[in-house]
């Protein structure tokens, strides 16, 4: 059976399939949000688009894989290692390479990030080869039957993980001294320096936290997705859309944007097909930006 929509003939589906698709959109969206959270933090403070974000995600996924493969560590437990490790890696990367090579100029930073991403990707290709690597966890197929769709634990973990990370980041930025310093630097760099904030340190801290977020996302993704040197691209391009849609620098915006894009994408794919359905992401993106140019939760200054 088909239904007509704006002159286009669409296949109609039962409400169970539509609901199931929407629920799967929420889970897919939570994955986008997870990846977008780190991206939005780095953009919000450093005002640069982190082209290396996908490569950082890929490296973190490899770290989770090898911790499981060599030490037998469960991907979720490995967060205890990869999240602090990600922070240190991001902090060091910003302090030693990105900060120094970019000389404070945004346009140079952009190119440096691109260079870093190329180096990371090819290093991974050289050492880990192109072979996909999958983690097998015993609870891979366990979960709940919601009637319209079956939800497995790794999907629930990704959704809860994105909610928790958003909450922690929001709390951190609102109530801690470092969070306030980060906000100060993002709003007025020179003023922050004048009141005694070490701007270079805050830059590196922000980059470190952004990388820690992507490391947490990696641990939540690995039980579902195989790791290979190109895996970052699969999520990061849409994560960029999520960041702009939600409002650059806004965590709640990244979460809401991720969920909106996830549900829109799934429903679009359901009605328009797997390839054409992706167009709905662009359509919703354009509509939101037409009416709210700063994104859903973006402030005017951002």
């Amino acid at each position, binding site marked *: 059976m088909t239904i007509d929509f704006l002159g286009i003939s669409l296949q109609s*589906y*039962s409400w*169970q*399939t539509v609901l*199931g*698709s929407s629920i*799967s959109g929420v*889970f*897919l969206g939570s994955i986008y949000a997870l990846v977008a959270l780190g991206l939005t933090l780095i953009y919000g403070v450093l005002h640069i688009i982190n082209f290396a974000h996908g490569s950082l995600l890929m490296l973190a996924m490899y770290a989770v894989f090898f911790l499981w493969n060599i030490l037998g560590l469960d991907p979720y437990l490995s967060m205890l290692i990869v999240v602090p490790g990600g922070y240190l890696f991001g902090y060091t990367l910003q302090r030693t390479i990105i900060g120094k090579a970019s000389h404070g100029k945004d346009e140079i930073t952009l190119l440096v990030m691109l260079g870093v991403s190329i180096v990371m990707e090819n290093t991974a*290709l050289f050492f880990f*080869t*192109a*072979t*996909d690597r*999958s983690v*097998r966890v015993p609870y*891979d*197929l366990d*979960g709940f*039957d919601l009637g319209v*769709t*079956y939800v*497995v634990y790794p999907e629930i973990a990704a959704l809860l993980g994105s909610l928790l990370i958003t909450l922690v980041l929001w709390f951190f930025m609102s109530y801690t001294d470092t969070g306030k310093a980060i906000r100060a630097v993002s709003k007025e760099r020179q003023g922050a320096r004048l009141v005694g904030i070490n701007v270079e340190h805050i830059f590196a801290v922000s980059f470190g936290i952004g990388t820690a977020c992507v490391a947490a996302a990696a641990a939540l993704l690995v039980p579902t*997705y*195989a790791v*290979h*040197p*190109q895996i970052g691209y*699969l*999520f990061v391009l849409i994560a960029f859309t999520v960041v702009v849609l939600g409002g650059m620098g806004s965590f709640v915006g990244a979460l809401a944007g991720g969920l909106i894009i996830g549900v829109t994408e*799934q429903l679009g*794919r*359901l009605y328009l*097909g*797997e*390839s054409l359905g*992706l167009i709905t992401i662009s359509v919703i993106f354009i509509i939101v930006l037409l009416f709210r140019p700063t994104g859903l939760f973006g402030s005017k200054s951002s």
Partner: protein
Amino acid sequence: MSKGVNRKTRREFIKTAAAGTVVVAAGNLSFPYIVKAAKSVKIGVVHPVTGWAQYSGSQCRFGALMALEEINSAGGIKSMGGAKLEAVLGDAQSKAEIGAAEVEKMNGAGVSSIVGAYASNICLATTQAAAKHGIPHVVDVGVSDKVVSRGLSNTFRFGPGFGIITRVGVESFIEINRAAGSPTKSVAIVHENTTGFGAGIAGIMTKGLKPEGIEVVDVQSHPTPNKDFRNIVLKLKEVDADVIIPSHYYGEGVLFLRTLQRQKLQPKGIYSVLGGASSQYRFLSEFPNAAQYVMDCNHWFDPNNSASMAARKKTEAAGKHFNYEVFLAYTAMKFTADAIERAGSSDREKITEAMASSNWSGHFMPYGQTKMVNGQNMGAQPLATQVLGKEIEVIAPSKYATAKALFPRPA
């Protein structure tokens, strides 16, 4: 005085050493060997070893180089005095235009022939680029029928194309279904639509299965790469077909079969036609439960040929899985070497002629004697396999079968 003695001694030493080298070389190695061993024949090996197809491309490269190494260690091209094959490697980066650019570079490097380039869309570009320079190009995988239907006299495909595979796929499925008492009334097809190899599957399946009273109730297509199959599986749940027929690349194959498993959708059977993961030892070793009972009509070697088992052992000893990419690229390289052997020359035109008139039968594929018509090996055919326990068994055609199909699958 001492200077003069020294100078004379040095000259004498050089003369003696040079003469000695010639004598030793002529005596032990024979003169023609020295002259001809210096010759080599350059073969372009182009595959996508980075980008979305990097895994399969790397597997292809491994297979092609394994064959090249075997040929060289067995004495090289004998009709050219033992000339060695020399690989000129190229990375198509999973993009057709880069593949074509790599062919241009290979032309500059003076290759006599090209083996590659895995995905159909890349093969279409590389064969076209090779045709401009008259370089014979052996397509290792690239199943799209367009690859050999454009009238390019330089293009050869040793393995089967999409049309043959789908036709045999229908015949084998009918054979399996009849043997099980014809329990199938409906099928749903899921195929990739980015590189173009699976686009015609729905039409061929519908036409082939209709006389058996089997209806194609749903056709889903998806891009490559694809990161989520939940929607497709939800739609499949709604149509509730007896058998699901997937057709896509490895990464999507794994994700699709795992999503079916996660969504607890268990049809009477999964019968892939060119299912990227369905007959892969790697998928079987990593996800033995998801792989269980999955049938696949795909490229496969003759299981009764001892050479195929030897190649499998060698591949596994190198830490690789003996996937279709490996053995197709391996045989494509051996086919190329056989043509060069018969041409007795590194001349592109002569090799092209030798390929077109090839009757090579020294391979382990179930193709019989080679017969090229418009660049397609007419004997090439796929086999139907099924994952049973820890092994991938051939279930049809009966001539090559190593086990009986378990269909409908046990719950």
